[in-house]
């Protein structure tokens, strides 16, 4: 009974609709293939324009790219970021290289997503100084945007959520995935010298250098927060970092573990830009720790020889 019914249905369909009609119906009713790639590219194109648009700041002086400048490996080369009216801000600009792999955003992790983070500097009175209404108005004033928003969202309405989505999507294209270290991992034995490989061994030794304790694979970060003793926490101007989000003593002066891919290009280092070179970073961990309270438990006492330090830094320099 079931068998005969099953046989009947295609026959019934053929008798009710002629071949030409069926072809038309297929054209009209079958769902097209989804093209995420195309949609992604349109979103990236919009995000890129927004990222480089200095009209998204109150005095039209500053874009996202003013601090995240591709010429400086998507950072700014400054110890501390410079905001509106040349105000020196309290932290260094982190590079956005490989932020696509991040789980926490901002030095203190106060932002839960890249989409959310992308809007924070725009609304910060010291950085770009707009509010939501002004942001939408500035974008509406530029006729180029209507087409870009329409292409990216099938709708030219401008909202701050769409701005965040587009900028984040653009930022996710800024990656370092083919460093000399990566090429060596993939089998190019000449991509790293013997000294650099020895430096990698030192890097991996949690008791000798301790680097691996926080700079975990695959992106050289544990996505965590640590006080690595860069600055004292005394006085009203002390930067308590993650403690402002998680008020536990262990978080006083703790900041996000940055990825190291791309690091050879992103000096100066640490949240306060206090190390000018990778050599200075290693020196800090060996004998430069200033603050002794609430230090990360992952820090160890290290005593690297001059030769080992040099090998370690050689390895770090392969990460570009």
């Amino acid at each position, binding site marked *: 009974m079931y068998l005969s019914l099953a046989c009947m249905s295609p026959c019934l369909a053929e008798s009710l609709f002629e071949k030409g009609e069926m072809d038309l119906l297929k054209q009209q009713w079958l769902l097209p293939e989804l093209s995420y790639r195309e949609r992604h590219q349109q979103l990236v194109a919009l995000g890129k324009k927004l990222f480089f648009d200095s009209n998204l700041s109150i005095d039209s002086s500053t874009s996202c790219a003013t601090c995240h400048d591709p010429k400086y490996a998507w950072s700014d080369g400054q110890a501390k970021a410079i905001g509106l009216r040349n105000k020196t801000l309290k932290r260094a600009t982190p590079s956005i290289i490989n932020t696509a792999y991040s789980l926490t955003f901002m030095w203190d*992790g106060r932002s839960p997503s890249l989409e959310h983070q992308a809007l924070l500097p725009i609304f910060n009175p010291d950085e770009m100084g707009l509010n939501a209404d002004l942001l939408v108005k500035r974008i509406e004033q530029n006729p180029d945007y209507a087409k870009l928003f329409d292409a990216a969202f099938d709708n030219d309405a401008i909202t701050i959520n769409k701005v965040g989505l587009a900028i984040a999507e653009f930022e996710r294209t800024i990656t370092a995935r083919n460093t000399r270290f990566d090429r060596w991992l993939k089998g190019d034995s000449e991509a790293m010298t013997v000294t650099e490989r020895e430096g990698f061994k030192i890097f991996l030794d949690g008791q000798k250098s301790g680097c691996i*304790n926080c700079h975990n694979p695959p992106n050289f970060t*544990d996505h*965590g*927060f640590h006080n690595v003793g860069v600055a004292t926490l005394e006085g009203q101007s002390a930067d308590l970092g993650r403690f402002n989000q998680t008020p*536990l003593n*262990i978080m006083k002066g703790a900041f996000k573990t940055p990825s190291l891919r791309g690091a050879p290009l992103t000096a100066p280092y640490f949240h306060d830009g206090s190390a000018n070179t990778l050599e200075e970073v290693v020196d800090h961990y060996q004998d430069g720790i200033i603050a002794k309270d609430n230090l990360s*438990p*992952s820090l160890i006492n290290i005593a690297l020889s001059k030769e080992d330090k040099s090998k370690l830094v050689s390895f770090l320099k392969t990460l570009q």
Partner: protein
Amino acid sequence: MKIAAIVFLLSIIVCSNAYSSEHEVGQKNKAFSQKTLKVKVGDTVHFTNQDPFFHNVYSMSETTAFDLGSYAKGNSKSVKFEKQGEVVVQCAIHPFMKMKIKVE
């Protein structure tokens, strides 16, 4: 009379202990071994670090707030849940590590 009262109190304590349970929650690969856990008032949860690096388990929930401090692989710290309610547990070092304990 006094002795009878003491025996009565002791029996309550013994009985209540007999009904409380122990639970194990590991921290491995930067995640809690359970996303959610149901326990009863009086139950104890042991948080054991199975990762080769430190974790710092804590909660700021209204019903049960605690900070177990940072501890290394192989170490375990415990919390007894005395009040009903939902308790969000996180790692301070790795804040994306999050779980909920429902205390009934």
